[in-house]
């Protein structure tokens, strides 16, 4: 539909319409958000624990699930909606068809119309649109005998007795359909013989979506069902999903960051699944923040978007039922897979289809055209890709496309996805890029090769956080569920031994013990059927061994057992028929079994409940003896804390771990790090609690599976402690004036020797880095990574130091440590770093943040400095374990905001800068460069209006950031391109008391009209105006 807008500036004045009043008045603990594509129908408004949704179509509000069960927002609050998050889960099977998938499908057709993306496991990287959800298949039902918000028990006796297989209901959904707690639906994490668990904090380390609490406890007497759905998608899968396939229904979600307590970690993170109307608990760590946030100040979060605009346009030469051909182009096969193809003019104009695949000249769409395009049809391809191409080669931590001519670091902190070919479905954060090579923060699982088609996206899995009167900026990773002050390289949990199933994070093992005579194959047909048995009776084989059990899976008319399945393999058995049994529950008699094969079994004990069931394939790691390690099939599951697999070679028992955690060491046997590649980085240790105790330490060495630090920490716990490796240089670290004048303090080496590093792009002052004190240069990646070397002299382009064991090359990226490092001494008011030579008082009024060790998490105002000493108000004394950084940004407290620029007509701004308003009674506006991780303070014109509590902001997706000044109701906008501020109407009614929280959003209609919505401070009123000027 084409829009004609005849509104004229100066002739037509803005008109503010009154929207229906919100159900609850705005407070300082409220905020509003909407989809980052602006194209949403809804505005989401949270006030304290209450969540509402405003429908822009019908001008009405309704309530959504409140945040009951998590930290109650009482001090500050912020929400951010991401269209590129959604409803997460794991498939049960492919559903029996080539375009189906069996999963927990909520109820009704709520999933229909959404895209489903396989994000891990079999078939990852595929994306389809859900076209139908079949009626639920009810697999089980029962009555709750033990109530819970996270789990229930059904210990019914008699006919209703439950004797489920361990984890047989994994990834099904529990739905309470009668009694207290009814109507609630939750995906199942695991099950025991008679209990169902849908929320377990221990599983945070395995699955970031492991804590969807029930809004109402499912009470005793409630009736439940266990069910699943067959979902149909719009085109056949290229690779059918299976029970390892992790999916995300791209329905959007809201991350909520709030302060509810005045003790560390102060803040809590939650996630609202818009589709399922479920809140998930996420985690925060004390290590990121020790001092209390400034009460009643603002926080602001920003996320990335996949909407990258138009990637390519052209004119069709012909079209078919589901194809569009342009013989005039030479595309890379599947380069545009998953993107959107739109007929923009000519025959078939206005039709929009998803691209299933593409060859050099032909697009194939996932569904047929209504009107086939022809040679009159012009088209555009839109989507989230920034660039795409085909790799010329790949390595463990890089991808090369020799056809590229990128600017170095152009795509740092973006995400690289393999969209087709070898390694399809993998995504990694780009650590850096040269002209032709993408370097990554961690290894590929499967290295790409010359068949791998890649695409660069914004990192939609990261969220940036500012505020609380801090200078530091935090980053939350949706995948790792961790918050850090610097770039995240890798994450995981403490694993001495581990069992890893495809599509999910590893489960740690407490021990692996080998036993002989375990039953590996049990004849399904008993030797004697006996009588009086029931299906699901558990038979314990008592002849010749112990702990071997079988499950009755079929009986005859007299209760004689006709079929059994192996349940646990036991030990010390011998093969043969007629093995006597006992039965639970009592009743049946006379059944004897036939043991076909026995073998050595590795009995594994897990520290937390696992979700494996018989037949799963897992990769065992951590044992010093190779016989224990490798891909194994689970043959017995005794409990959710034990399972067994067949082991060959009769290795010595018990298995010995290659390393153990201690107060100075973390072990993750699932990793394969390069020795000492992480030296100098930070490791943040956390427990598995939602509000976790966090400890940060600077890494002094690492092996393939261990990280070592110096200052003793609480020893990581196998299977429950989490960690994340992050950069020592936090986001927005300062640099000295000498560094700025010299072209910066970091870059790729262009050459060097064992005593020199050359960067011809620099123009440093001679010996600036060695005057008085020898500054350190740190090698952050490539050849020489992990080294920190004292600079003994420098020219404009060359750093000279003592002889090293490596020679810098084009892969060597370095940073001069002129505003961060490790303290060499400290007191309650000072930090000393003798490797510095700062100008006296050059850092006055800047903030110093302590990143690790003693006094970690503190951020102090520098009151003065000498060449080597920073002085600040009395705090907790740092020491030699304390990594520190001087921060660039002005602290942001009241009336602040952070906006990622995505659609400016100045394309150099897009995807690169986040604009941040300092507020706090200042006029300051600064912008953060995502790629080089530095802030620029801007001068704009006119710059006189100060902004503080009550000022609200919204980016229009193009060239403007609209903002209001506190309680005045005056609206202005900042023009990104012209760098000016322009008045922009005034709300039609006075604001009440100005309060914190951002409650101003823009919705863009399908026709491109943009309406700006503002909620009144301390009131229920909301207004909207059409932006046409």
């Amino acid at each position: 539909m084409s829009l004609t807008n005849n509104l004229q500036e100066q002739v037509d004045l803005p008109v503010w319409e009154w929207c229906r009043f919100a159900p609850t008045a705005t407070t300082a603990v409220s905020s509003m958000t909407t989809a980052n594509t602006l194209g949403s129908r809804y505005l989401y408004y949270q006030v304290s624990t209450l969540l509402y949704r405003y429908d822009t179509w019908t001008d009405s509000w309704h309530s959504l699930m409140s945040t009951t069960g998590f930290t109650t927002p009482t001090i500050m609050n912020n929400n951010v909606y991401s269209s590129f998050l959604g409803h997460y889960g794991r498939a049960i099977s492919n559903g029996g068809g080539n375009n189906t998938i069996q999963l927990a499908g909520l109820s009704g057709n709520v999933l229909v119309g959404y895209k489903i993306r396989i994000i891990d496991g079999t078939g990852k990287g595929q994306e389809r649109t859900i076209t139908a959800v079949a009626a639920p298949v009810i697999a089980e039902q029962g009555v709750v005998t033990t109530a819970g918000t996270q789990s229930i028990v059904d210990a019914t006796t008699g006919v209703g007795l439950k004797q489920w297989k361990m984890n047989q209901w994994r990834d099904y959904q529990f739905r309470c359909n009668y009694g207290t707690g009814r109507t609630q639906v939750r995906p199942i994490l695991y099950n025991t013989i008679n209990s169902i668990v849908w929320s377990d904090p221990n599983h945070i380390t395995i699955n970031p979506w492991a804590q969807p609490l029930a809004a109402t406890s499912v009470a005793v007497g409630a009736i439940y069902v266990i069910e699943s759905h067959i979902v149909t998608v719009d085109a056949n899968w290229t690779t059918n999903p299976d029970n390892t396939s992790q999916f995300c229904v791209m329905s959007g979600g809201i991350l909520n960051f709030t302060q509810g307590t005045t003790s560390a970690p102060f803040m809590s993170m939650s996630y609202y699944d818009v589709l399922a109307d479920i809140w998930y608990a996420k985690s925060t760590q004390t290590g990121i923040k020790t001092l209390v946030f400034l009460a009643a100040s603002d926080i602001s979060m920003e996320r990335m978007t996949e909407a990258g605009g138009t990637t390519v346009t052209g004119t069709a030469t012909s079209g078919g039922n589901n194809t569009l051909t342009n013989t005039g182009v030479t595309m890379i096969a599947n380069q545009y897979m998953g993107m959107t193809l739109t007929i923009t003019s000519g025959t078939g104009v206005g039709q929009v289809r998803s691209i299933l695949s593409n060859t050099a000249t032909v697009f194939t769409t996932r569904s047929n055209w209504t009107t086939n395009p022809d040679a009159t049809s012009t088209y555009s391809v839109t989507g989230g890709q920034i660039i795409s191409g085909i790799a010329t080669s790949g390595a463990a931590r890089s991808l090369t496309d020799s056809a590229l001519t990128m600017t170095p670091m152009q795509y740092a902190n973006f995400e690289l996805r393999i969209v087709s070919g070898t390694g399809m479905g993998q995504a990694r954060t780009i650590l850096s890029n040269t002209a032709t090579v993408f370097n990554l923060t961690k290894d590929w699982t499967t290295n790409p090769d010359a068949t791998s088609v890649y695409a660069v996206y914004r990192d939609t899995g990261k969220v940036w956080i500012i505020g609380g009167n801090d200078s530091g900026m935090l980053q939350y990773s949706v995948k790792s569920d961790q918050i850090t002050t610097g770039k995240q390289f890798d994450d995981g949990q403490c694993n001495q031994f581990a069992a890893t199933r495809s599509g999910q994070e590893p489960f740690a093992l407490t021990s692996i013990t080998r036993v002989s005579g375990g039953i590996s194959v049990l004849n399904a047909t008993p030797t004697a059927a006996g009588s009086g048995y029931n299906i699901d009776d558990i038979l314990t084989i008592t002849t010749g061994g112990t702990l071997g059990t079988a499950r009755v899976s079929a009986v005859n008319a007299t209760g004689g057992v006709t079929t059994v399945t192996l349940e646990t393999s036991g030990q010390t058995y011998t093969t043969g028929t007629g093995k006597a049994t006992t039965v639970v529950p009592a009743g049946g008699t006379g059944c004897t079994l036939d043991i076909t094969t026995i073998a050595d079994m590795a009995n594994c004990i897990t520290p937390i409940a696992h979700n494996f069931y018989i037949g799963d394939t897992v990769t065992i790691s951590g044992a010093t003896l190779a016989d224990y390690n490798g891909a194994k099939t689970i043959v017995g599951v005794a409990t959710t804390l034990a399972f067994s697999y067949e082991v060959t070679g009769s290795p010595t028992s018990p298995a010995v771990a290659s390393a153990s955690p201690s107060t100075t060491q973390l072990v993750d046997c699932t990793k394969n790090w390069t020795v000492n590649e992480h030296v100098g980085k930070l490791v943040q240790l956390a427990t598995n609690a939602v509000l976790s105790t966090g400890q940060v330490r600077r890494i002094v060495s690492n092996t393939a599976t261990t990280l070592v630090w110096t200052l003793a920490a609480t020893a990581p716990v196998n299977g429950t402690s989490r960690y994340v490796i992050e950069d020592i240089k936090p986001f927005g670290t300062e640099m000295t004036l000498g560094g700025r004048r010299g072209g910066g303090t970091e870059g790729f080496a262009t050459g060097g020797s064992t005593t020199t590093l050359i960067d011809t792009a620099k123009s440093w002052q001679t010996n600036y880095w060695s005057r008085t004190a020898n500054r350190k240069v740190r090698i952050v990646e490539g050849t020489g990574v992990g080294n920190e070397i004292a600079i003994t002299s420098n020219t404009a382009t060359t750093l000279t130091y003592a002889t090293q064991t490596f020679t810098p090359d084009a892969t060597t990226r370095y940073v001069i440590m002129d505003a961060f490092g490790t303290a060499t001494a400290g007191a309650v008011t000072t930090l000393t770093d003798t490797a510095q030579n700062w100008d006296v008082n050059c850092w006055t009024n800047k903030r110093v943040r302590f990143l690790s060790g003693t006094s970690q998490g503190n951020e102090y105002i520098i009151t003065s400095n000498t060449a080597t000493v920073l002085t600040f108000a009395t705090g907790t004394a740092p020491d030699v374990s304390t990594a520190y950084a001087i921060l660039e940004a002005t602290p942001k407290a009241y009336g602040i905001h952070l906006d990622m620029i995505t659609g400016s007509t100045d394309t150099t701004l897009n995807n690169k800068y986040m604009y941040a308003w300092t507020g706090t009674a200042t006029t300051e506006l600064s912008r953060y460069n995502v790629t080089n991780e530095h802030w620029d303070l801007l001068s704009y014109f006119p710059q006189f209006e100060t902004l503080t509590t009550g000022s609200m902001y919204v980016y229009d997706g193009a060239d403007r950031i609209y903002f209001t000044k506190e309680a005045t109701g005056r609206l202005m906008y900042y023009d990104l391109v012209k760098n000016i501020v322009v008045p922009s109407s005034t709300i039609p009614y006075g604001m009440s008391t100005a309060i914190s929280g951002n409650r101003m959003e823009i919705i863009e209609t399908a026709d491109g009209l943009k309406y700006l919505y503002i909620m009144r401070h301390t009131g229920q009123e909301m207004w909207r105006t059409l932006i046409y000027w």
Partner: protein
Amino acid sequence: MRPTKIPLKYSFRLMSRKKIKTLLVSKGDLSFNAVAGVINGKKDKNRELDNGKRTFLKVAGVAGAGIIASQLLPKRAEALIMGSTPSSSVVGVKDSSNIRIDPAKEGGNLASIKTNTDSFVASGGGGYVRQDSTATIAKESGGNLATIAGKDFATQTTLATLNTTAATLATEESIILLRRIAKLSDSLGVVDSNQRQRVSVDTVTTVTTVTTTGTVTSATNLVALGGVDGRYLYIDTAHNVYANAIRPNLTFS
């Protein structure tokens, strides 16, 4: 008031001065009606004549008797009848038995009363003194005033004690009730230093019907109008403005 003449009918009558004075009252002065026989402003002529006659006879009778007595009664008799002492010309008083009574005087019976020290006899005599009894005059200390009918009189001492029981009085139910009553009778007005009352008028929350209001200078918070939130007046107006000013300029094809 102008005096009038005495009516002619009294021309040859013996009249007292008082009567004459009465007759000199103005005829128009009805305030003297009781004597003048005026009822409701009109004179009762019959009653006026009767009163005049009776007065005349009384005056004449008394005057005649006096003249006769003064000529006939001897001095001796006078003394006997009146109890006087003829020799000394002292007038005496006799009782019903014709016995002369000696009047009380200081040094006589009064002296006895004055010097009487007999103790108080409660029965029969309380409150007055009989010369021939043992009763005595009540006195403050040690006398009858200290105890009357078994009840103690408040004294300075007991009043002081009463003062110390103020705390008890503060919680005394009757006192509290009295205070409440007194409070209820207080004015709602605020009295300023000049004892002027300031009147506070409560917010008018509900006005069932306002028939006619000439001018409302300012309605600062019009909560509802016709039962509808008052802001909807502006809300709907804004919608109309949008509909008329904005929407017509947007066309879709």
